[in-house]
Structure formats: structure tokens, C-alpha cells
């Protein structure tokens, strides 16, 4: 059975929590005691019917105020697939949460309220999914029951969105599905109310869509997490480099280079606790041993000589700014990239992006919370990196404020 990680994005009141509650409920992932708790709360609050959205509201403030704070993760399984949902709220710190949820997702569901059609927020969600390189986007046109299940309305929304999406640089695969999360139309079961819709239900689509693996299996990349040196008689000479493959395939006998030192060697074994492996590829966690004793430590990267990453101290990147304090140029940060941490200075802000219109902003270059744009960074020591488009692991980084230790930005290398 395989695993699909997806994120859900929507505006306030578009029924996102109801949709997730519906997916969990109709796929029988809700247990009796959870449902009983929700029924009790719904009754106490005086709801007309059991509010499925309550299934996903975790914290007390959320239940009381009927809002969602922070990214929450949900799990369900069908006989075909296991699913991890990163459920991101629509209002506070929206961009920050969606970027977080999208960073580990392979598919995004964007909800559109059929009564409102494609609005600014829809475009913003699509832009972010695109920026984070999510390859599959499902446009769930919700609340079809409130527009009399009108095919015309649905077709108009579809055309409007396609028009907008054609302006995104990294065009993704889009699937449109008309639903009513409240009534369950086309969520798990096919709707009788929309005979004109011939496509799959949302759940069937999630279960069967072919998801290209997010991993890169071409360029070999192995960021070293830690060095394993057992001090035991049995394993006296063992010196292994533990890490999770970030790209490509590693096999015993392969010629490799350790970066940044440039020392060359060959792979002696791909070690695991269950015995040596024939090969390792992303996203497996293994331990590599080499033929030669060379100096390698955490933060170094083992690669192959024929397709090395870029190595350097100057980066161009798109960032999303998370902090309440605005970004000032010349500010110094800790930059965490793979297993390496270096000091970094933001040298220049190239531009910001108006994520509703996709226009570049060049007259206001101050990054405030939730702003997205392009910057130039200089690091204190070399990084071994790829573009984010090529490899999501070796192409991403975070910036940490050295005074507060807060994570203040997410970066995608261009």
C-alpha cells in the first residue's frame, strides 16, 4: 500500500473542515467515541445538526470560536491507499501555514465556494501550490447544493480558474470536481444530483491518481547526518555515515565524492540494521561505509562525480517571510540547509510578488509576515545545493533568527 500526502486549502467558511470531517466519516475513519464527543459538543452549542467540522478542531479556543489555529495533521486509510492530510487554516497567518503544509505534500486540494467562484484567495492558493512545486491540484467546487447543482456555474468556475492557471510558470495537473461536503455529494459517493458530471468522486480520485514520486532518483545526493563509530570489539573498524538519501541511487562499488572537501572514494557497503542492502535511494535512511578513510562529518554531502550539485556561498531564492518583525537587509541569520547550518546575510531583496495578481512589486521591498519574493543571500561557508525545481530536499532551506531562535523564513533556491 502506498502513501499520499496532501494539503487542503480554502478560505474562511468554504467548508474545508466539513469536507475533511466528511472524508474521515464516510471512509469510516471516525471512531464511535470521537463521534460521541462531537455530538455532545454540537448539542451543547445548540447546532441544528452534528457539525462534522468539529472532528478536526483540536484546541479549546478553536472549538469555542469555530476557527482553526495552525496546521493539523489527519490520517485515514482506504483499502487502496493511506493518506496524510496537512489541514491548513484559512485566516490567520494564512500563507505561512499553507507553505508549511504544502512543503511535505504531493497533492493539494483547493476549495472554491460555488457561489463566489474564483476569488483572490483561490489564486493565492494556486500560486502557493505552484511555488512549492505540488504537481497535482484538485479544485473542489464546493457548496454545489447552494447553486442548484448548476452545470453552468461549475463550467464557468472551471474556465475562470484555467484562465488564471495558464499564467503560472510551472503548470500543474488540474482536476475539477463539483461537490457538496455538507451533503456528501461526490465526496465518497457519487451524487445523483449532478448526472452531468461524469468524472470520479473526490475520494476515488485521491485513491487512484498516479502521483509522480516527489523524490529525485537521478542526481545522487547523501547529506550526512551523523557519523557512526561503534566502540565495540565486533565492529572495531566500522566507520559509517548515517543519513537519508536525498536523491539518486547509491550502490556498493560506486565512485563517490565527499563535499565540500572533494575527497574521492568508493562505496564499500550500504549498511542497515537488517543487513547490507543492494542499493539505497530516496527517501531511505541508511548508513554508507567507504573504501577509504576520509574525513567526513555532519553537514557534508556524499555525491557522485558525474553529476555534482552546485557548490557556493551565493544563493538566489524565493522566500516566504514568517516573522512579525520585518526583514531588513544586512540582517544576519542561521541558515539550515539539509544537515548543514551556516551563517547567512540577506544581501539584496530583488522583488516581492503580489500573490493575488502575480505582479512583481519593486517599489516596496520590505518583507512583512506572509510576504513572498526573491532575495540574494551570502553564506559564511559553502553550501552544496540544487535548484528547488530539481530537488525539493537539496533545494530548500530555512532561516532562523539567531536572537530568538525562531524560524523566520522558508526558502526555495532558484
Amino acid at each position: 500500500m502506498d502513501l499520499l500526502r496532501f494539503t487542503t486549502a480554502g478560505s474562511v467558511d468554504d467548508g474545508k473542515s466539513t469536507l475533511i470531517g466528511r472524508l474521515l466519516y464516510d471512509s469510516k475513519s471516525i471512531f464511535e467515541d470521537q463521534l460521541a464527543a462531537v455530538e455532545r459538543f454540537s448539542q451543547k452549542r445548540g447546532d441544528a445538526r452534528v457539525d462534522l467540522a468539529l472532528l478536526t478542531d483540536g484546541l479549546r479556543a478553536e472549538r469555542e470560536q469555530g476557527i482553526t489555529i495552525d496546521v493539523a495533521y489527519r490520517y485515514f486509510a482506504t483499502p487502496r491507499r493511506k493518506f496524510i492530510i496537512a489541514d491548513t487554516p484559512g485566516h490567520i497567518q494564512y500563507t505561512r501555514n499553507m507553505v508549511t503544509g504544502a512543503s511535505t505534500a504531493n497533492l493539494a486540494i483547493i476549495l472554491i465556494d460555488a457561489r463566489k467562484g474564483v476569488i483572490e484567495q483561490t489564486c493565492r492558493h494556486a500560486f502557493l501550490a505552484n511555488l512549492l512545486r505540488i504537481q497535482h491540484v484538485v479544485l473542489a467546487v464546493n457548496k454545489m447544493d447552494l447553486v442548484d447543482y448548476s452545470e453552468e456555474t461549475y463550467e464557468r468556475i472551471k474556465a475562470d480558474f484555467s484562465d488564471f492557471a495558464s499564467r503560472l510558470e510551472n503548470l500543474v495537473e488540474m482536476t475539477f470536481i463539483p461537490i457538496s461536503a455538507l451533503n456528501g455529494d461526490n465526496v465518497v459517493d457519487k451524487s445523483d444530483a449532478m448526472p452531468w458530471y461524469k468524472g470520479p468522486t473526490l475520494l476515488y480520485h485521491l485513491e487512484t491518481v498516479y502521483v509522480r514520486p516527489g523524490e529525485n532518483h537521478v542526481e545522487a545526493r547523501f547529506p550526512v547526518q551523523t557519523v557512526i563509530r561503534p566502540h565495540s570489539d565486533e565492529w572495531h573498524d566500522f566507520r559509517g555515515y548515517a543519513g537519508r538519501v536525498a536523491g539518486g541511487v547509491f550502490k556498493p562499488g560506486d565512485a563517490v565524492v565527499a563535499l565540500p572537501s572533494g575527497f574521492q572514494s568508493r562505496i564499500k557497503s550500504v549498511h542497515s540494521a537488517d543487513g547490507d542492502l543492494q542499493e539505497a535511494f530516496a527517501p531511505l535512511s541508511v548508513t554508507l561505509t567507504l573504501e577509504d578513510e576520509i574525513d567526513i562529518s555532519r553537514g557534508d554531502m556524499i555525491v557522485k562525480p558525474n553529476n555534482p550539485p552546485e557548490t557556493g556561498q551565493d544563493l538566489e531564492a524565493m522566500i516566504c517571510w514568517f516573522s512579525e518583525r520585518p526583514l531588513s537587509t544586512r540582517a544576519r541569520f542561521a541558515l539550515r540547509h539539509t544537515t548543514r547550518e551556516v551563517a547567512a546575510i540577506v544581501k539584496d531583496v530583488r522583488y516581492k510578488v503580489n500573490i493575488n495578481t502575480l505582479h512583481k512589486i519593486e517599489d516596496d521591498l520590505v518583507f512583512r509576515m506572509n510576504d513572498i519574493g526573491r532575495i540574494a543571500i551570502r553564506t559564511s561557508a559553502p553550501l552544496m545545493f540544487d535548484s528547488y525545481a530539481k530537488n525539493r530536499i537539496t533545494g530548500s532551506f530555512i532561516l532562523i533568527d539567531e536572537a530568538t531562535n525562531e524560524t523566520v523564513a522558508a526558502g526555495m533556491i532558484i
Partner: protein
Amino acid sequence: MSTFHRYQISHLQQLESEAIYVLRETAAQFRNPALLFSGGKDSIVMAWLARKAFHPARMPFALLHVDTGHNFPEAITYRDDFVTLIGARLVVALVQDSINQSRVAEEKGPRASRNKLQTVTLLDAIADNKFDACLGGGRRDEEKARAKERFFSHRNDFGQWDPKNQRPELWNLFNGRKHEGEHFRVFPLSNWTEMDIWQYIQQENIPLPSLYFSHQRRVFRRDGSWLDAETGFANPQPDEPIETRTIRFRTVGDVTCTGAVESTASSLDDIVAEVAAARQTERGTRADDQRSESAMEDRKKEGYF
């Protein structure tokens, strides 16, 4: 097609690989981490993964058991055997010590439990041993407050969790930086479900305490589950008659708040089938979560596991 299929791995391999990555990051980013070990199945799986993550070296963590004193004897026997099997070092922090030192007061009444007192013992053990990170077996599918947890969860210098002000966690980049006196809770099993845990135990053939398997036990009924009447830690009231039932435990913790379910599942295969058909969450038998709608959230904010 063949190249595509070659690089597919199962969901258990994905979860295993992710957990090992998190365990190694914890070892690399902290000076003195500990692994919270209760003898329950989640902490058993976590310790098993820690053994794998650093093989053939020993895991660079101590196992920390916060012991309420209200244990199932089987769980303690198991704990000591398992620690030997995986070659780890065990540190035990006793709630009884916290009571003797008047750090906490024993709850009173028929439903008295030491579950809540553990928080103080845990925070004291963290301070005394200078642990800067504690690995916990918590899973996001367990409980709704846990659905919002990070892999690396920051705790302030009072050991408290602030759910409204968590660090965003992007890709697999974990920010474990902290100020003096603060610490982290790390949850390598965040993305596992109860089913994944059981399937993994089955796949790896991990030994478990006998409590998880069907057996006859003298029990009494309280709040919809069966509580143990053999160890003497839980106090049946006059209207709670003791009877012998065929039961098993779905979680293993403090005797006073760990309820059993009636079950004839005596093998891992049986249990996986039972879990697949279950209509109650495993925490449905935990009296500690049923004290209120936000019981877990409140305890977590105070510094609970």
C-alpha cells in the same frame, strides 16, 4: 515502468525511514537527549527504531522511565528484558520520590490517579539529568491536541507547550535551537497511526508485554472499560463488582487509568484484525483523557508527555 516500480517503497518503510531520520537529527542537534520509555507499544517501537538508527553503535540516548509505582508487574519484567535486548541504558524517575519530597500531593478519593503527578516527576528528571530533549512516542492520530504537534516541539523554561505559537516545520528541516533552560520534545512517530504501529510490530516481530494479548483477569467495570483488580492499585467501589473476564489492554500505562477491552486476540495477526475492525479509539479506554474535552491539551500545556 520497471524503473518506476523499483523505487517504490511501502508505507511502513517510508514511516520507518522518516522516524530514523528524526532520531538521528535528535542525536545530532542535542547534547543530552533521552528517550521516554513506558513499556507501552509506541515507546517500544520508538526504542526499536533507535536501535536501528545507530546500528552497529549503541543508541546515544538513555531510556527514561517515569514510574508512577502503579505498574503492571508484567510491564516491569518486560521493560528490564527489553532494555537488555536492545543494549540501552535505563534511568528510572519515581513519582513516589516526588511525593516523598512534597513536590506533589497524592490525589484523594476512589478515582485517585498518579497520572497527572507524572508531569512534575518528568520535569524534575529533565532538570536533574540535564536532558535537553526528550523523545516521545506520541502520535498525531491519537488525540486532537496531538494533531497539531510538531516533530520538534519547543518547551519553554517551565516545560510548557504553547500551541498557538509553534515554530513552523517545513520539509524535513528541524529547528532545535533553544535558550538555556528550554528543552524540546521530539516525536519520531508523529505520522504513524495505531494500525501502522501494529503492522510494524508484526513485520519486525518485536516482542511485547503479555498484557497486550488476550488473557483472563479479575477486573471491574468503570466508565465503559475494564479496570484491573489484581494489582490492588485501582480501587473498585461497592457498586463496581469484581469479575473474571477475557481481556487485553490496547495501551499500557498507569494501572489506575488503563482500561482493558474484552478480546480473544491472542496473536499479532488477531490484534491487527481487531484494530482494523475497532469502533473505539485506543484512548477511549484511557480515563485520563476522559476527564474533560480538552484533558490532553491541558496536560500538554503543563508539560505532560
